[in-house]
């Protein structure tokens, strides 16, 4: 699946016509990651929230977005991530967002990889970063 990046906005072409979008967040190296996202109309259209906010966790449990199919190609999913290391000595880790396409999960965002230490969870600190996914529905 083609993915482009521009700053914190990643444009993803998702074959989403006619159905919901199912997302899954995974993390390696026993990172604990919490994420919350919400669909918005683009800024030019007032950034109106669509539907309730969703939570994603690095335990791999899927989350399904159910906007109207006609709306999806004009919406953005705004996600904030917070991650911490479940052990003291983690020097790198990866977080990846997947989307269900053709009954299988495909990477939606390139792996977010740390080259430096993320905070140890017991320090009561976490690393945070934003991500905006712009959906572009294409014919299946």
């Amino acid at each position, binding site marked *: 699946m083609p993915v482009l990046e521009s700053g914190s906005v990643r444009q993803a072409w998702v074959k989403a016509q006619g159905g919901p979008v199912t997302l899954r967040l995974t993390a390696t*190296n*026993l990172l*604990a990651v*919490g994420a919350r996202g919400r669909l918005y109309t683009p800024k030019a259209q007032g950034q109106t929230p669509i539907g309730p906010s969703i939570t994603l*966790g690095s335990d791999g449990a899927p989350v399904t977005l159910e906007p109207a199919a006609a709306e999806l190609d004009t919406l953005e999913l705004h996600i904030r991530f917070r991650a911490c290391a479940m*052990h*003291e000595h983690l020097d790198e880790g990866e977080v990846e967002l997947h989307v269900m396409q053709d009954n299988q999960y495909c990477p939606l965002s390139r792996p977010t990889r740390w080259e430096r230490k993320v905070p140890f*969870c*017991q320090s*009561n600190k976490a690393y945070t970063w934003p991500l905006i996914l712009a959906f572009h529905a294409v014919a299946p």
Partner: protein
Amino acid sequence: MPLRLLRRLLLALSLGLLPVAHAQDEPLNAYDFILDYAVPESPAFAALGVTPSGVLSGSAAKPLAVHFLDQFLTRGALRPDLALDVVPYVLAGGGFQSLDAYTGNRFRQLAANTQFSLGTASVEGDTASVRLGWGIRVSLLDARDPLRSRRWGPELQRRLIAALTPPDDGPIGEDEGEGVVEVPGLSAIYDEVIEEMRQEAGAALAAGFGQAVLVRGSVASLDSMEVLSNTAWVAGQWYTGLGFDFLGMLQGRTGPAFDDEIRIGVGVEGGTATTEVAGEVVYTTAAARFDYGLHATLGLLRNVKLVTAIGTMSEHLVSDGPPRLHVSAKVLYNLSEY
């Protein structure tokens, strides 16, 4: 980081027994899921016969611990004994990419729970000589090690994820960046999990072997060294989940310095994560006698504990006289913890 440097230094000094090949591509430290703070007796002290407790623990090994033992009330002089316990696999950075990679690999489980130890003990009535001890101990199972539990590791992760989930702060602004933020309450989740684990019943089992050597004149040459004893033991523990645990131990010792003997010990201990009191009774075949002991563990800091013990157990390696009361105190510095 000084602690990391210390670990690497200890790594280099650990008799070349280190599986360094695991260090480069597996950054996860196996120990960091072992939430049981109980540190077992040093295998080197067990080999030297100077452990404060007569019944050894079955709990999981800790990667790096230092024991300072003194029996000044018994000996009438301050002559501390020292032991250093290391788990080479963990100190070398040996680990795994996921919890499943550990729980599904028996070799890694054993490697991460195999402990080597070196220690010294003074010789009663001979200040010019010293006893050296070394030991190896394998923790075969421990119900308070979430690494070997398919429940507690994922449970800790689930709770952390819930606490990490950010609030709904509206659309992301153009100037919103990334960085480190405070998330209060994460540390408390670890404490919660530890306390809940303590309320569960389960078992622990460990086996060990050690050797005690007398070095005459404190000069470690082959001519000046004399093997005193070889000791092997199996120690078990049953966590009742009710605030107290049962201990059991079978220990065999042989050597030129005294008659071969078998020790059978049972005990019970209770308390909290930071404070424990235990009572024990040990039967020794060679002397055909029962010994009794009490010991208390007090957490001074999260990783520093004071162990005080009183009992009739003799060290056996140097004194086989009639039972007399021994008092000892030990400071335990668990360098594996913050």
